[in-house]
């Protein structure tokens, strides 16, 4: 294994570790949280306080994630 390949493998491993650590088994939850935070920030920029947008969007993401598991088991 050459030096560049070794560095590439280390960087890939480093990236994979953080991906697994933060995103975990299902990206849906992280996406739901990002969308929720984004929605709150956009509404705030238009002078609306929409605290409810975050829990609603992450709840939808959680249900989608659970539904995927259920579909696999049927």
């Amino acid at each position: 294994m050459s030096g560049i390949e070794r560095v590439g493998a280390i960087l890939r491993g480093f990236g994979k570790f953080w991906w697994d650590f933060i995103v975990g088994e299902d990206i849906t939850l992280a996406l739901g949280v990002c969308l929720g935070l984004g929605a709150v920030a956009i509404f705030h920029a238009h002078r609306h306080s929409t605290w409810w947008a975050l829990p609603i969007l992450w709840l939808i993401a959680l249900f989608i994630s659970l539904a995927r598991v259920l579909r696999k088991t049927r």
Partner: protein
Amino acid sequence: MTTSVVLFISAFFACCVEAVEATTVVLAVGLTRSWRSTWRGVLAAVLVLIAVVAAFGPTIAHMPLSPLRLVVGGLLLVFGLGWLRKAILRASGYKAIHDETAAYAELTAKARSFNDVSGTRAIADDPAQSGARWMGGDAYSFTLAFKSVFLEGMEVAFIVVTFGANAHKVGLAAIAAAAAIALIVSVAFVVRGPLSKVPENAIKFTVGVLLASFGTFWGAEGAGATWPHSDTSLLVLIPAIAVVTLATVAILRNHRPTDKESSLSPIVTS
């Protein structure tokens, strides 16, 4: 006061769950192979964790409050939802309950099966699997102990640092984590076996609800929202999330196919 109590409970229980899982691995390799190398692995992992916390802790604590709440709230929420998802699937029977006794039996069998002259090229390439001698010790024990303590510890270190920094109580969170580790390690070494009686799923459920609640509260605040009645809204948010989670478990239980219909294999997962 409420935040301090919740912070202590979250850090303590999160640490208990991770400590139980790490202790199972440490006991399995220590009792079947080499205590000396196992301890070295544990010590190395603890030192790396201390270095990570020392490097990132003060940086996080000095961030301006709004971006801190946005980033930390978002991350706590992602972690909390991951814990809740796992707890819901286990409680409703869609995922096998983490069985420390089975995990311990599997680990000890694996640890016994690898010896210094073991097999194939693929195994021999990996010092952790071949049981190679390394720094006068057993590489298998060192690597396994290091990996388990570091990986389980990272999650706890992250919760302690971010939760603590956001509430300006890193010291309290660290005390809670240390108390949990001391309790689990003491019990494990008295029992000298896997801690199968710890209700891991119930603890994971509680911590998941708390992390999701605080993550939602801080994340939305960091993104610019104003909660009705400020901090008091947490007293509604925490029970509301708990109720929704319990209702989801009840609904999923009712819709679960029987074992014959289900393709789910009863595997033990982390």
